[in-house]
């Protein structure tokens, strides 16, 4: 218990140190490269603001979830240690979604203009990402075939609801007609947000699959094969969601998102 409290305190200190650190040139350049943005004097602050806000909220989310978990264990004198990685990552994921809420849109005075190109959630994610998301869900169901893990199921359902809500918020955010560089940056921040939400969902669902498959009785006979499939699939899901999905967004998926 004391170890957990110390760990939470250390994490909070680390976050406060990381939060005051400005976005480095390297991080900024990497984001611009990933999304094919040409940095300009007007879109630069928009990107830096987005990167700073999302990093701050994700870190606060991770630390917040750790603190809640520690308080829960102290208040209810619980000896059962919850899955620390799932808790930590769930906080990071929820923080990332919360970071998308305060995004405002500059509403110009005078005539208002809008594009007639429809924005859909699937326009922002690549087909491979959708397949990985469905694959991780299938693995999760497989992991629960032998023994239903209620906490993992509840976490996965919460992840799906949060992810859908987050993506809808990002897609429905107003997009007035802006200068080309600003529009590029706006579209890139939307794609980054959707990619992070999808990637985070894949990671969390894979973690939940591992969590569910690791509980209950030790696998025997044919269930060893199922366990092995879930284990290997979840590891692939973890790597894909964390590394591949957020860094493979340079090519615009399916259709041009910028208005003609």
């Amino acid at each position, binding site marked *: 218990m004391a170890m957990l409290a110390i760990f939470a305190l250390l994490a909070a200190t680390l976050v406060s140190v990381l939060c005051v650190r400005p976005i480095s040139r390297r991080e900024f350049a990497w984001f611009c490269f990933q999304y094919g943005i040409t940095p300009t004097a007007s879109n630069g602050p928009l990107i830096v603001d987005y990167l700073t806000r999302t990093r701050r909220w994700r870190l606060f989310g991770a630390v917040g979830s750790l603190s809640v978990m520690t308080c829960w264990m102290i208040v209810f004198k619980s000896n059962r240690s919850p899955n620390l990685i799932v808790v930590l990552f769930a906080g990071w994921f929820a923080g990332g979604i919360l970071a998308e809420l305060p995004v405002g849109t500059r*509403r110009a005075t*005078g*005539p*208002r*203009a*809008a*594009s*007639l*190109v*429809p*924005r859909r959630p699937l326009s922002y994610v690549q087909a491979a990402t959708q397949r990985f998301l469905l694959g991780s869900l299938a693995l999760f169901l497989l992991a629960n075939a032998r023994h239903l893990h209620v906490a993992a199921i509840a976490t996965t359902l919460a992840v799906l609801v949060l992810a859908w809500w987050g993506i809808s918020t990002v897609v*429905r*955010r*107003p*997009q*007035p*007609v802006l200068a080309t560089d600003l529009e590029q940056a706006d579209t890139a921040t939307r794609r980054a947000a959707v990619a992070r939400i999808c990637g985070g969902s894949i990671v969390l669902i894979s973690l939940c699959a591992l969590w569910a498959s690791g509980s209950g009785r030790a696998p025997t006979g044919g269930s060893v094969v199922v366990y092995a499939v879930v284990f290997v699939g979840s590891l692939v899901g973890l790597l894909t969601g964390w590394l591949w999905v957020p860094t493979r967004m340079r090519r615009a998926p399916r259709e041009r998102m910028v*208005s*003609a």
Partner: protein
Amino acid sequence: VIVAIDPDSPVPPYEQLRAQIVALIGGGQLPPGSQLPTVRQLASDLGLAPGTIARTYRELEDGGLIETRGRHGTRVSERLPKVNAAERRRRLTDAAAEFVRSARSLGATNIEIEAHLRGLLET
């Protein structure tokens, strides 16, 4: 494909939007079958009430220009209604009147209006 709404115009926003979508369909920029944004998306992008956009879509639907197919969204009709000569003349007059009204509100003289129109026609 951009639409613009002038909040200072005496023409109500739903009518401004309707006229522009009709012009875009007529001009071929919105070909038959092309999907239109949802009411909520267009309302938030233009800063208008969803009811205003819904009214525009309803009127376009009544005119047979667009179709709403439940979950598949709103699309430009595959079979656009034929415009008869009288209706075509009326729409042209409306468009010209709108142009002249906007130009006059900017303080343009008849000569300036003519010159601009001629310039546009020659490009």
